[in-house]
């Protein structure tokens, strides 16, 4: 399988803090790569660095054979990379419809079909079509954020903790949607919920203290209790 995204030894500073100190991994086309690690390990910063929101000071990020390390955020997004941030970043004050329209590059017939398809993944959103995004529940916000990243055709989705703070029944819905999205696109997922991560992840990368500890197949990690215990505090 071809490698879609390749991250080589990236270092990122936020203000004077050296947050990423050497993160490397690869995401193969069509797979779900999960970034694991405890709080503050640098997973969110890794996604933000890929998006160019906290640019890397060292290392390289190759997407589809193009070096995107130094590119501005909007150009990275326009290379068909969708991003769902940890806090969802819904535009409060804009309706659900408007939240999606900000993301849509075109508004022709094909785009509308695409929108319809994405909305079928998240039927709840249709119910709140004209509602202010700020008044959605946590789960609805999460779905809106995912729909917004997916409303344009995406080659890669970066999704940061979609299950965070959600009730189990909603987590289930989010997972169903992710499984559906996975059929079409490559996903890099940050997830603390190990069950969810293990269910849909193909590969994992373990990050601790801003460094990659290990990468491998998810099926191997599921049986490696020692690793789980040491870095994820579970098992």
């Amino acid at each position, binding site marked *: 399988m071809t490698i879609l995204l390749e991250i080589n030894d990236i270092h990122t500073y936020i203000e004077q803090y050296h947050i990423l100190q050497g993160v490397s991994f690869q995401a193969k086309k069509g797979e779900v790569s999960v970034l694991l690690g405890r709080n503050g390990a640098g997973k969110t910063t890794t996604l933000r660095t890929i998006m160019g929101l906290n640019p890397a000071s060292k290392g390289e990020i190759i997407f589809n054979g193009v070096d995107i390390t130094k590119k501005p955020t*909007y150009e990275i*997004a326009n290379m068909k990379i969708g991003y769902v941030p940890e806090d969802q*970043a819904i*535009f409060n*004050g*804009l309706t659900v419809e*408007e939240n999606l329209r900000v*993301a849509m590059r075109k508004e022709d017939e094909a785009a509308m079909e695409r929108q319809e398809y994405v909305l079928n993944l998240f039927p709840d959103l249709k119910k709140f079509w004209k509602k202010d995004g700020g008044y959605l529940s946590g789960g609805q916000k999460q779905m809106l954020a995912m729909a917004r990243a997916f409303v344009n055709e995406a080659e890669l989705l970066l999704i940061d903790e979609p299950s965070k703070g959600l009730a189990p029944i909603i987590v289930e819905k989010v997972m169903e949607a992710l499984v559906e999205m996975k059929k079409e696109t490559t996903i890099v997922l940050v997830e603390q919920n190990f069950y969810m991560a293990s269910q849909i992840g193909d590969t994992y990368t373990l990050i601790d203290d801003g460094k990659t500890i290990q990468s491998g197949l998810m099926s191997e990690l599921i049986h490696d209790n020692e690793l789980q215990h040491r870095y994820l505090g579970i098992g």
Partner: protein
Amino acid sequence: MELLINLTINGLSTGMLIFLLASGLTLIFGLMHVLNFAHGGLFAWGAYAGVWFYSITSSFTVALIGAIIVGALLGFITERLIIRPVYGDVVPQILITLGFMLVISEMLKVVWGPNQIAATVPPALSGSWEIGDVLIIKYRLFIILMGFLVFGIFYYILKRTKIGLIVRAGVINNEMVQALGINIKRVFLLVFMTGAALAALGGALMAPYSGVIYAEMGMDFAILAFIVVVIGGMGSFPGSLFAAILVGLAGSYMAYYVPDLSLAVNMIIMVLVLIFRPQGLFAVKG
């Protein structure tokens, strides 16, 4: 009664001029969190450019368009040279835009001389209508119409168009807008130039209204615009219209009924707003 109508028209037309200045200020602040202290300078440049274009072409339309172009160009220069180097750095930003304000105001004197310049109302708009006992000065009515027209156009753009949607989204979370593939810097520049052009248009409309223009007029009006932005709520477009009309009307009535208080009235409104609703009357959700 006729007095009241005349005072109202006066107040409304001053209010509209302030609105043209304040709306740009508030849009730029809402989107970029930049408070442009040089905005009044752009207003003065618009006034001078308008008078100059009018003097060489004798066409008021050309004068207004010329002023808008000059304003947009100056806005371009301001954003690139002055705002960008200190983007996101509040204190330097405040300091530097005020410095730029003084530089461009002083440049007016270099280009057009240090003395006041007379400005005339174009013939088509001069004179007045008499309706019963009420005397309506045509030019003032024109300013009011222009003000509402500008408000209408911009309200439509903000609410109904894609670029307006992007600007509104950018006000809420400009990082996410970028992550959705939008070059926010270009949007900034566009908004900045638009705000500058609005200020310049305000200046060009102001010139025939007051009859004379002078380099310091920018600062005088900028102060009113700041008051309006505080009252209306930083970043709110309808808020700036409402507050501008409020300030214009209050000034106009007070100047007639209680002239000694006319100066203080804006102050009093602003202080009341700051005490009871410090985020402004039309606060933008952040």
